[in-house]
């Protein structure tokens, strides 16, 4: 366990619990809400710690092992800390044809991170993603919840708030 798991705010807040239970009410078995519940935790904390996972499992009448099996299956559930914004770089076929490798390199150059890495200021984590369903605007990036179309190098500074160096 990390230190973070030991701190007082490792308890789920009332708001988190309420949202998890609201999701659980949509299914005949509470466990149906497992993925959405983990996403509620991520909305507030960015990632799912062991302590959060245990509390969500209790709320949904699941074992910790079962819920962790779910958490580790889905690539958008983060079981380790990520940056404030996750950059999802589409590396599927249409974006690849229109230069997504180059965009990825340029992001890596600017932020000093590879896939799976987080910037030292905790702002960004960079991950590959499958086709984002916007292939007519390839290459495509998603930063946080926002989709960026027809990305080229000149836009990257604006998208990532990095000054041209």
């Amino acid at each position, binding site marked *: 366990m990390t230190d973070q798991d030991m701190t007082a705010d490792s308890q789920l807040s009332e708001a988190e619990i309420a949202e998890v239970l609201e999701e659980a009410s*949509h*299914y*005949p*078995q509470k*466990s*149906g*809400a*497992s*993925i*959405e519940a*983990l*996403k509620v935790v991520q909305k507030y904390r960015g990632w799912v710690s062991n302590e959060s996972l245990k509390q969500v499992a209790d709320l*949904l009448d*699941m074992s910790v092992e079962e819920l962790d*099996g*779910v958490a580790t*299956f*889905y*690539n*958008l*559930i983060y079981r380790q800390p990520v940056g404030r914004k996750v950059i*999802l770089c589409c*590396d*599927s*076929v*249409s974006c*690849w*044809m*229109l230069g997504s490798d180059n965009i990825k390199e340029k992001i890596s150059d600017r932020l000093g991170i590879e896939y799976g890495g987080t910037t030292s200021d905790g702002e960004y984590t960079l991950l590959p*993603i*499958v*086709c*984002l*369903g*916007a*292939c*007519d*605007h*390839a290459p495509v990036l*998603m930063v946080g*919840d926002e*989709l960026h179309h027809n990305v080229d190098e000149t836009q990257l500074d604006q998208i990532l708030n990095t000054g041209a160096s």
Partner: protein
Amino acid sequence: MFGKFLKKSRNRNPDKPLTRNIVDGRAYATLSDYQATGGYEGLRTAITTMDSLGVQQVVKDSELRGRGGAGFPTGLKWSFVPMGENAPETKYFVVNADEMEPGTFKDRVLMEKDPHQLIEGMVIGSYAIRATAAYIFLRGEYHLSAERLAQAIAEAYQQGFLGKNILGSDFSLDLYLHTSAGRYICGEETALLNSLEGKRANPRAKPPFPQISGLWGKPTIVNNVETVCNLPHIFFYGIQWYAGLGRGKDRGTKLFGASGRVKNPSVWELPMGTPIREILEEHAGGMQDGYELKGFLPGGASTDFMLPEHLDVLMDFDAIAEHGSRMGTGTMIILDDKTCPVKMVLNLEQFFSRESCGWCTPCRDGLPWVVTILEDLIAGKGQASDLELLEHQTKMMGPGNTFCALAPGAMEPLQSALKYFRDDFEKYLERPAVKEAG
């Protein structure tokens, strides 16, 4: 029983029913925009003038085929659901909005631009099988779709299109939006059901089919977003009108798209059976200057390549199948003459390999093996026997040898590339290992 129904169908005959509410300069169709063009009137016709089996019959007669890739007749699928007094009390209607097939970008447009159309279709589909609850299984990255759908669902409840006694009938329905968290395999309908139950998204054995034993063991229908969006129009304008829309054997319209190095990559609603040439030349504007068409995947990553000589084939389920491929999702991925087909196939197999759910051995171990062979080949480290090995893999992971259709789908672009672009593979064998040499 069809009187009212047919009269209406003569009133207006939009040739682009699915996108008629997508208007330039308007972010999306609100409830009032939707109702201004007859929104929720198809539902009214279905629910107030027909019983559930009558609704199923209309959809059968419409010959609507699923738009999720396989083209299964929608009415026939519904007819496997137990109906009547002895049927289970709880049944589910699920919309597959997972859209993760590389090169596919059609369902997103429908959900972002006209969310009520999907909801109306879902109520009609749910009524047809007497579902007690309906879910939209939406991929996690579609934030804007989630926002618009959530709002539309709330409005539909307020207006009495959802909830208890819909439009004064004895039919009640709850509809929920489920947002997912990644993994392409979630789109496979039985994996989707496991995912919706809050489990890992491994596919299930069939039989039993979901229509008999699906979500939590209850009869369940899974339909694609675009399939369901056809339903309001079939009931509002009628099946004669619907039949008149197709240009080939299939009926209705379809969202077709093209991405890659064409002048105007986009998505267009066109009649089923529109010739591929017309889509690529008139709508996509032809190839970008300096590029030539080398081949294309007609409907997403898991379809076989086709060649320029196939341009006059109609975009129709059967017509494409006759030429060794599948219409799939109908959104084409264009291969130009300056892109290496072997590298393109590597990109596709890397996708499938990464997204394999790991449940069965041929796929879990076979796909990474294919990736390694292709990588070595491209790096100049290939051997003559590699091409046979790749061919062997396409058989090992072909239909019937794996637990679900992901691996056979992954083999389609590979097997057709080996057939059509053999020279490009062989070129790598002739080349010395450039990197190692230095």
